[in-house]
């Protein structure tokens, strides 16, 4: 159990003063804090509690106080004000070389490390033997530290820190979630830890971890607790970090924030929303916004491709139909050749790739991906710049902006898991799509279009890579395959690169694909395919909407917001396309079954064509 009661942590920037204070405190501890402008407030009035076997993820930018919280939990620091109650043993997981001397053998060092981590004397030989076996280092037991590779030692230390049982585990920027062999070994143990112990994960960026593994989430900024509550309700709020208060200029500002209503409100409370009043207010807001003859600009849309297909375009369709908007007075702003999707709405379209040079677009795009700001919860400086270019080009002064953040605000409520699917259906209109596409030259007849990319619902793991390789290898032996791999990353999804196989044509081989036309080309390939096979994410959502028989895969349905997106998509698709879509969890199906389903889908498509 972890309990923080009004905890503040103040560091004196003057080391001499700090040591003098510590010396006096060893004899007589007073509540007196030396006031100084140079004091560093690492934490300010933090209160939260975590029960046994609950898990907490703490997100915040650097210098927000995460490491201080970790130290307070582990007992490596004392609070300046307030009280910290910890029940149980704690473990700060890391791979630092703690206490190693050159003459120690690996076995002796492992014994020392295990005892430092609280292993029992009786089971020490068994523990050391197990760890060496698991890390495949038994033959190195008698090798001295001085002669042992540092990287292997770090791995051994890390694994020891998670192997020895503890009541509370703290991962301070040390949460391993990589796909190496060692990483997967650690993942298995970490999964076990999350189920059986209390876990606190502190990170400055989002971590790919199944949502059902995390109970609570906390957002920190500049030592202040901004949000604390259930993971699903707090996660969307994290994306609004750029809306947070500016860094404090003085201690007075910090004090004010501490006493502010926002801080008190968000402490310990989940955000509960009255859906019906939210819906009424939202629609009234949109009514007021759109109730003018000004030109409407929707966009610029630069977020996930999948969100654009299943949410953004249906959202625009709903706006047009619900508010009876003039399509001639409506411009859609998107990128990478998405015009083909907006054509059906009858809107004017401007592509961002026409406003910037390819180099500028790539730089802007990579910057967004590296910052993790794919979802557009607010308008960024780059987007403001793009809008000003559009306004200048069209010589427009007055306009109404429908920014994707209006949609993401709705989605935040939807993703919180407190609202039913009908809630979001009140704001979108999902329909099958009829697109006018041209046949691409160089494409074979009766091909299967495939799209495999790595995303939270299909992470880049050894198992997933193996599945993908085996599936494509089997498919390429029996069918003609066209891959949507382009070498171009349109959003946060990472294309899976696989070795060239016979019978697989990739659109990048056509040498006509650019940032400007990638989505159009991919749409062409999908719409002319006999069958679509891919990961249920991104452009894969388009295939069933085009009426193309689709078999999509996932390996982790519960990651992030995917569970909600899946439910929404399946519900809407079932309204108009009963037999054209199959969604498969790869952990439940053998490869032979999957190939059988693919063959069956292709045969039924062929027989339909003959009829």
């Amino acid at each position, binding site marked *: 159990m972890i309990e923080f009661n009004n905890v503040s942590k103040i560091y004196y920037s003057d*080391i001499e003063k*700090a*040591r003098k204070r*510590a*010396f006096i*405190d*060893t*004899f007589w*501890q007073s*509540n007196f804090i030396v006031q100084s402008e140079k004091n560093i407030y690492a934490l300010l009035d933090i209160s939260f509690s975590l029960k046994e076997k609950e898990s907490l993820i703490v997100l915040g930018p650097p210098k927000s106080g995460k490491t201080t919280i970790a*130290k*307070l939990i*582990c*007992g*490596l*620091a*004392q*609070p*300046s*004000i*307030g*009280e*910290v*109650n*910890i*029940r*149980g*043993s*704690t473990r*700060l997981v*890391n791979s*630092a070389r*703690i*206490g190693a*001397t*050159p*003459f*120690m053998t690996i076995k*002796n060092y492992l*014994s*020392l490390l295990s*005892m*430092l*981590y*609280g*292993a*029992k*004397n*009786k089971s*020490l030989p068994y523990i050391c033997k197990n760890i060496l076996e698991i890390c495949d280092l038994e033959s190195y037991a008698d090798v001295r530290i001085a002669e042992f590779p540092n990287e292997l030692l770090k791995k051994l230390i890390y694994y020891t820190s998670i192997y020895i049982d503890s009541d509370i585990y703290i991962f301070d920027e040390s949460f391993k979630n990589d796909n190496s062999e060692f990483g997967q070994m650690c993942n298995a143990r970490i999964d076990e830890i999350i189920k059986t112990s209390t876990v606190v994960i502190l990170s400055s960026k989002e971590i790919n971890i199944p949502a059902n593994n995390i109970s609570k989430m906390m957002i920190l900024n500049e030592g202040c607790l901004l949000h604390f509550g259930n993971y699903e309700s707090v996660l969307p709020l994290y994306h609004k970090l750029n809306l947070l208060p500016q860094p404090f200029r003085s201690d007075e500002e910090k004090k004010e924030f501490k006493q502010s209503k926002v801080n008190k409100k968000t402490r310990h409370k989940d955000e509960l929303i009255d859906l019906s009043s939210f819906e009424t207010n939202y629609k009234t807001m949109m009514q007021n916004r759109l109730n003018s003859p000004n030109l409407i600009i929707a966009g610029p849309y630069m977020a996930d491709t999948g969100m654009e297909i299943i949410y953004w375009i249906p959202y625009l369709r709903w706006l047009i139909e619900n508010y009876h908007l003039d399509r001639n007075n409506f411009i859609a702003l998107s990128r990478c050749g998405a015009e083909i999707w907006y054509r059906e709405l009858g809107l004017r379209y401007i592509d961002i790739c026409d406003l910037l040079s390819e180099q500028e677009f790539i730089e802007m795009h990579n910057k967004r991906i590296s910052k993790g700001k794919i979802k557009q919860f607010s308008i960024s400086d780059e987007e403001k710049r793009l809008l000003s270019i559009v306004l200048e080009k069209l010589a427009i002064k007055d306009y109404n902006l429908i920014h994707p953040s209006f949609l993401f605000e709705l989605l935040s409520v939807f993703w919180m898991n407190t609202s039913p699917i009908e809630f979001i259906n009140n704001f979108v209109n999902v329909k099958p799509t009829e697109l006018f596409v041209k046949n691409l030259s160089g494409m074979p007849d009766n091909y299967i279009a495939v799209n495999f990319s790595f995303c939270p619902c299909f992470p880049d793991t050894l198992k997933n890579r193996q599945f993908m390789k085996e599936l494509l290898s089997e498919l390429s032996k029996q069918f003609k395959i066209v891959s949507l791999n382009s070498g171009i990353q349109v959003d946060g999804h990472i294309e899976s690169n696989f070795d060239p196989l016979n019978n697989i044509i990739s659109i990048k081989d056509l040498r006509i694909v650019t940032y400007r036309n990638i989505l159009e080309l991919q749409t062409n390939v999908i719409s002319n395919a006999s069958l679509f096979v891919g990961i249920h994410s991104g452009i894969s959502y388009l295939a069933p909407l085009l009426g193309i028989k689709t078999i999509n895969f996932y390996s982790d349905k519960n990651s992030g917001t995917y569970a909600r997106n899946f439910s929404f998509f399946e519900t809407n698709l079932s309204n108009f396309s009963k037999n054209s879509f199959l969604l498969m969890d790869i952990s439940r199906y053998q490869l032979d079954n999957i190939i059988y389903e693919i063959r069956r889908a292709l045969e039924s498509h062929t027989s339909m064509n003959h009829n």
Partner: protein
Amino acid sequence: MKSKIFRIQNIHDIIRLGWLLFFRDFQYRYRLSYFGYIWAFIRPVAIALPIIFVGKKFNFGQNNEPGVSYEAFAFLGVIFFQIFFDSVTYPQMLIRRVRSILKKIAFPYISIILASSFYVLFNLSVYIILLVITLFIFNISIHFSTVLSFLCLPLLIIAGLSIGIFISPITLLYLDIRYSLSIISGILLWTTPVVYALPKEGFLRSVNVWNPLTYLINTPRFWIIGGIDTGAWFFALSIIFFSLLFLGGLKYYFRAMPIVIEKIL
């Protein structure tokens, strides 16, 4: 301002951890030297020999009873003093050696004291060998009181630890105490009748009489080879004094450690 950490630790685990911490440092220290463990024997002999030589020259043992060999008298005094002073210095030495671990892992701090005790016990084993050799060389017969004096050796350790555990957390903040230990060692050596017999009068006698260490060294030494008997009662009072200091030191140690660990540089 409280940080309550509730933990239940098995005593065997703590002792084992203390042993591992001791062995880690012990191995490192002696492996880095050419003569290795032989230094444990060389040190007390090298300290004692010049003092004994000078002491014999200036007749430091003049106040002793006749028949008491000065060399044995002085060497035994040095051994007992060294046992005491090792217990003063080793806790602070070891705590500085494990400070990198203290910054990263919260483990039972008492294991550091245990580790320093293992160091002292190792040295004690060497001193006992030297003691036995001394008894043999100077033909000192073994009585019941000889056994008693050997049983006093752990009390000397506790007396030294009572000061050692008190100063060890402070050495994580300030090194002044560590630097001054050699000075304190010299002052203590000459204000305690280690290599000289207790004077019959004068200022030095007053200093010796009020120094509790006097009784911890004189009484066991008297029980082995004779000399001046300072009285079992004063010896018992010294034991009580140092025991209380030990308990107080422990309390201060547990209180101070969490505070100073944050400030480790």
